[in-house]
């Protein structure tokens, strides 16, 4: 029972993280934050501004990757009718 409770708590937290990830992305990419890195300086020859944008990008990808196998299975709220799906019937003109 306790384990179930903890499981559902974790699930809610992971769903919250899924919402926070793009929000953090938006904040990090907003001009007010991103402009802090327009310092006209370079790291090993590459401009810092460019490196910052790619770093945020990679952070977002890694976050989504981490979440991808932790978010719950998507269940379809409406029952499917499998006999009718994926069976394209040729209705080409004859």
């Amino acid at each position, binding site marked *: 029972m306790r384990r179930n409770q903890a499981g559902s708590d974790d699930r809610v937290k992971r769903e919250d993280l899924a919402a926070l990830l793009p929000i953090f992305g938006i904040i990090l990419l907003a001009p007010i934050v991103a402009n802090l890195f*327009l310092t006209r300086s370079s790291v090993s020859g590459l401009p810092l501004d460019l490196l910052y944008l790619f770093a945020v*990008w990679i952070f977002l990808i890694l976050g989504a990757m981490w979440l991808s196998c932790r978010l719950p299975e998507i269940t*379809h709220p409406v*029952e499917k009718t499998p006999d009718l799906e994926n069976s394209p019937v040729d209705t080409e*003109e004859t």
Partner: protein
Amino acid sequence: MLSLDFVILTAVGYIGLLFLIAYASDAIAHRSKGSFLHSPVVYTLSIAVYCTSWTFYGAVGTAARSGLEFTAIYIGPTLVFVGWWFLLRKLILISHAQRITSVADFLSSRFGKSSQLAVLVTLIAVISVTPYIALQLKAITSSIQAVVGTGNADHLAAFDELTLALGVAVCMALFTILFGTRNVDAREQHLGVVAAIAFEAVVKLFALLAVGIFVVYGLGGGMGQIYENAAAAGFDIYEQSPLGSRWVALLVLSASAVICLPRQFQITVVENSDENFLRTAGWAFPTYLLLMSVFTAPIAFYGLTTMPAGSNPDMYVLTLPMEAGYDSLALFAFIGGFSSATSMIIVASIALSIMVSNHIVLPLALRGSRVSEEGSDRDIARLILRSRRISIAGLVALGFIYFWLTQGSDALAPIGLISFAGVAQFLPAVLAALYWRTANLKGAFSGTLVGFIVWAWTMFLPSFQASSPWVASVMQVGPWGISWLRPEALFGMSDIDPLVHAVFWSLLLNCSILALVSVFSAQGALERLQSTLFVDILRRSSSFQPHTIRGSATTSELFFVAERVLGWKRANDLFHAAGVSRAGSAAKLDVPPEFIAELEKELAGSIGSASAHILLTSVVAGDAIPLEEAMRIADETQQAIEYSHQLELTSQELRTTAQQLQDANAMLQELHRQKDDFLAHVSHEIRTPMTSIRSFSEILLSEPDLPDDQANRFISTIHNESVRLTKLIEEILDLSVLEHGEKEWVNRSINGEDVLDEAIGVCEALARKQSVTIEMGQRAGYAPLFANAGRLSQVFINIIANAMLHNEAPRPRVHVTSRLEGDRYVVEISDNGKGIPEPYRYTIFDKFVRAGRSDMEGGYVGLGLGLNISHTIVAKLEGSLELVRGHLPGACFRVSLPLDQTIAKAEAKAS
């Protein structure tokens, strides 16, 4: 330099390969359902149709011209995809549940299956995407010219730019018609096309990476070296101006484009066969975008540094390998760009043709003639297919015409952004459809329409500036000379980037009108149902059956309709699976409404929800009224539920009241018992003196010759008993007055010490009589109180008198002290008697409790009411009366009263 013949033949060969892949995939999909085609990898790659030739070639151009701006076009979609759990998941779940076929169908279905909205969205999509198709044609012709160069003597060299574009357009239209309109599928899935698109995604990624690696590590000597050289050549390698409104506008546009562009909606939502594919696409698609752009900026800087001034940066991806003499790599890059362009044209034209046929052609055809009239058995399916084929050809032709009209304009990026901003006008309605229940058709329609008009005026029109003198003059002075209507300075907002200007005004007006009109107008019945189905999709239980058409259709009529749209086999399967007999035309069997709903959904999967609704309501007579009726019944049910809820609340209240009554009754019984006890006590107290008065007076009456001294003793006893009786009655009256509230209880500012002195004075006579010494201990001197002096005096007298009367010590003493403790005045009265026996310590303040003996003692006997009265008075003065341990052996009573704060403060201030 490559020969034009060779390049064109390669392109033709590549298109042939695409045909082969599409054909083989269709065949595989037909045979096995669980093939690799239904995999998250193919799904993710097909979403990469987002990367068109604009991305492939134009991103380098953008990086060369405007620095970091090129990343915004990829970062917007990245944000949408990493947040798939919230937006895309809901969008896909709804679309699967409602068998949505396009973005127009999505909005129309949400807003009451409205045909008008579907038509509007379709028109906007066609007008917005046309420039985008033109852009692809332009990219293909420019790239051919770039790889071939001039001065060739090939057989095909006679072709100019227009002819080339026309050739490409015709090829693309043919491919799309062949593979995109093979069937009127249940969910508009085109597995062959998707496989070809996924293949193209791999080709363009590898081509761009190959060029990138070649330029950066083969020619440039590493990333750092390229930047160093660019800086040495005088180029600014850093972002020149801070990111601002244009950056934000680009993020918004690209994020909305990846949802609202018809081709993205088609691939991401409609062609999705499993919602859980998003799990992979959520990170894999952003990774694809990252890989596509990782070499963009270095290529741009290398090109700027090494290429001659004036060369087109949009074509660096091709020209750099060619300059270095690597023609084969240039050809690979050309194929990559060609892939980007063709995949976009194919998917966009399929998506648009579905919208045009389902939302414009079919409703017109349905309105023109009743479908149940005579006709061939597959006329609707045939009509749809034919109209799709024609619209694909028409759309590609429109793209070609736009290309022809805007040949003068140079850069690729502005054309793509025009398209993005056009479809961004769907975003407010899409978000409202997903999350805002109140949003209604009028709001969505008017908001989208106004947004579209503003977009057309501020962004679409200016793109013709180079080719039309009239447009140029309107841009300069405004229409009819009205300067505040100038397309790029609307309402006087000039000095701002034209893109930001257009995005700001169109989305602002779009959102505001959508919100305001929705709030101030009502939803129709069907809209209310659909809004619940959309907004609450994640909450809904699977058994919830949305809207059922009720009516008088027979199975044969329905089968007739189903057959004409779905084909005989699928219609038969559907009827068979539902257990509905499609008996002969004579059988007037009623069809279960659930089946009609299921059928409507199936039809919607082929012809869109609005058309399916129109089609079925035209067969099933009189749906409109039953729907209203259904809503009324639903309302009544809602009322019944509310009523029963109210009943429940009332009965809960009743239970509470009953409990309160029970408690009150218990309290009354307790009071009744106390009253009985009290009466018993009082009767007892009265009976004793009355008995002695009566018996002594009887003796006096019956024996007149009693000796005088005896008679006097008897009379004195009668007198004493009467006094005692009077005192008892007085005390009972006093108690009654105190307990029931005294009318004339007036508190005044008094000095507690004065009252205490007065009480001691009163008691001095009794002290002398009893030979008791009153000792004064430490005194407070001054104690401001807000109290009733008479009542307080009564308390002190009572306690001092008790201390004297019940003192049996040989040298009786009463000790009185008073002091101020914080904000309280404390008086302690103790004696050296034998004190209150232990059993009485806790009940001494109750009525009729006497700690001492009840025999006569100096003519006075306690009635057991005095301390109770004192206790009541002190409580009324917000003080306390307690029995404490004093320094003398006997009892010690402590009276503690609050000081009068106002006076105490005033005095403290004065001092």
